[in-house]
């Protein structure tokens, strides 16, 4: 699988007494957008956190660009070119929006053209550039969290529910932006509940249940097959309107 940028092979993760990941096998192809779906508690967020080294895998291997990263520290993993947008957003409330962005730009001051691209996507960040990030609204903090992950080119971005709390007009812009990232050969692993958003971007899809991957395939195939959706996701998405 030379086409795989990231692969997880039989990964188990324990959090305290809880055995959350129970043998995750996942392949994230280079240059593609892979969507990770599944019900609450299936292990999607834990999978992203385990890849980032925020939870140590108790078993199994994680391979990124040919090297094993399981058990390495989070800063080491981030330095390999992996960006992460956590579910909790993790913005520094006392720092300004600009300072939050500067911290995320590891290679030097953010490139002006790239900042303009980000401001086009999330105009609020430009408006509040010099204000403490703690004053942003919930949705704007989410925008800042995404902006930090894309402030410079990354090989791989892990994104946990980017559309959560975001107004419809902004979501539309995000679809365009993620397509542009893909065109730049950025590989993306996306956890998302918004199926329309996921289906408009996803190349491949993996579905989790009870700490394992229970389905892998193309997004196009899943989006077209309501019987498959019902079987795998417990509900016909088309019917849920």
């Amino acid at each position, binding site marked *: 699988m030379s086409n795989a940028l990231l692969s997880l092979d039989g990964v188990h993760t324990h*959090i*305290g007494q*809880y055995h959350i990941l129970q043998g995750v096998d996942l392949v994230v192809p280079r240059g593609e957008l892979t969507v990770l*779906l*599944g*019900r*609450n*508690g*299936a292990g999607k*967020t834990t999978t992203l956190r385990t890849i980032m080294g925020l939870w140590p895998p108790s078993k199994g291997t994680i391979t990124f660009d040919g090297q094993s990263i399981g058990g390495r520290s989070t800063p080491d993993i981030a330095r390999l070119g992996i960006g992460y947008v956590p*579910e909790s957003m993790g913005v520094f409330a006392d720092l300004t929006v600009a300072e939050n962005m500067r911290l995320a730009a590891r290679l030097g001051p953010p490139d002006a053209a790239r900042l303009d691209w980000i401001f086009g996507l999330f105009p*609020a960040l430009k408006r509040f550039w010099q204000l403490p990030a703690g*004053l*942003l*609204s*919930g*949705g*704007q903090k989410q*925008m800042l969290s995404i902006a930090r992950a894309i402030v410079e080119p990354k090989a791989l971005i892990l994104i946990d*529910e980017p*559309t*959560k*709390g*975001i*107004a*419809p*007009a*902004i*979501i*539309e*812009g995000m679809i365009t932006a993620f397509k542009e990232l893909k065109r730049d050969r950025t590989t993306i692993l996306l956890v998302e*509940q*918004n*199926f*329309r*958003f996921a*289906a408009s971007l996803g190349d491949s899809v993996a579905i989790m249940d009870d700490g394992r991957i229970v389905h892998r395939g193309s997004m196009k195939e899943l*989006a077209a097959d*309501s019987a498959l*959706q019902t079987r795998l*996701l*417990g*509900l016909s*998405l*088309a019917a*849920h*309107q």
Partner: protein
Amino acid sequence: MSSPVLETKGLTIRFGGHAAVDDVSCAFHAGSLTAIVGPNGAGKTTYFNLMSGQLPATSGSVHLDGEDVTRLSTAERAKRGIGRAFQITNLFPNLTVAENVRLAVQAKARAAASLWSRWDHHAEWINRAEHFLEEVNLQDKRDLAAAALPHGDKRKLEVALMMALEPHVYMFDEPTAGMSVDEVPVVLDLIKRLKAAGDKTILLVEHKMDVVRSLADRIVVLHNGQLVADGDPETVIASPIVQQAYLGSMPEADSAGEAVS
């Protein structure tokens, strides 16, 4: 029309020079569900914070059942019946799911009357807590630490806590954000049941327009802290300001919904 349960008059808060909520006057009645929509940063959550008391108003007033509660603390307003679930969850992380709900049940019992003597009602509290856990379909997770719950379940637990306080005003801030598609109907059904009871006043901040359409009797639109539209859902959704400022070119706005077609 009956007198409003909750009302704001000229409600304003400024952070420095910026008016996050700017002169908003609006009344909410029992038996109605009002959706509050608007772009990110429009002031929706701040408006909730001003009504529930998390933030002090710079000017204007908040009235609950005819009483001016503008100067009352969050706790005082909660005792008078304002219930609030948050966009960013607020739980006791190291207590179990059941313990979180039982604390809310006990708080309600203590606030209610001295009918409740101290420990004889422990079993009763546990039963009440169990009832609210079942309402949100979390009974199988009662013994997990709240911190160990996935995000969507934390949202459901927070709704259970609000219900356990038995308020007559319910404020939901994006209750289904981060919930998987099979879980969303549980929360929507619960809100529908509250609405069907007919005596609750329900406010909902929500970006998913399919959810808004299925629940709301009325939509209020905030933009740059100001109330810019207020009316029945079809009229408000069709209005130019909503189309341009909020929905962009997605008039059907199932952007955050789940339609595949």
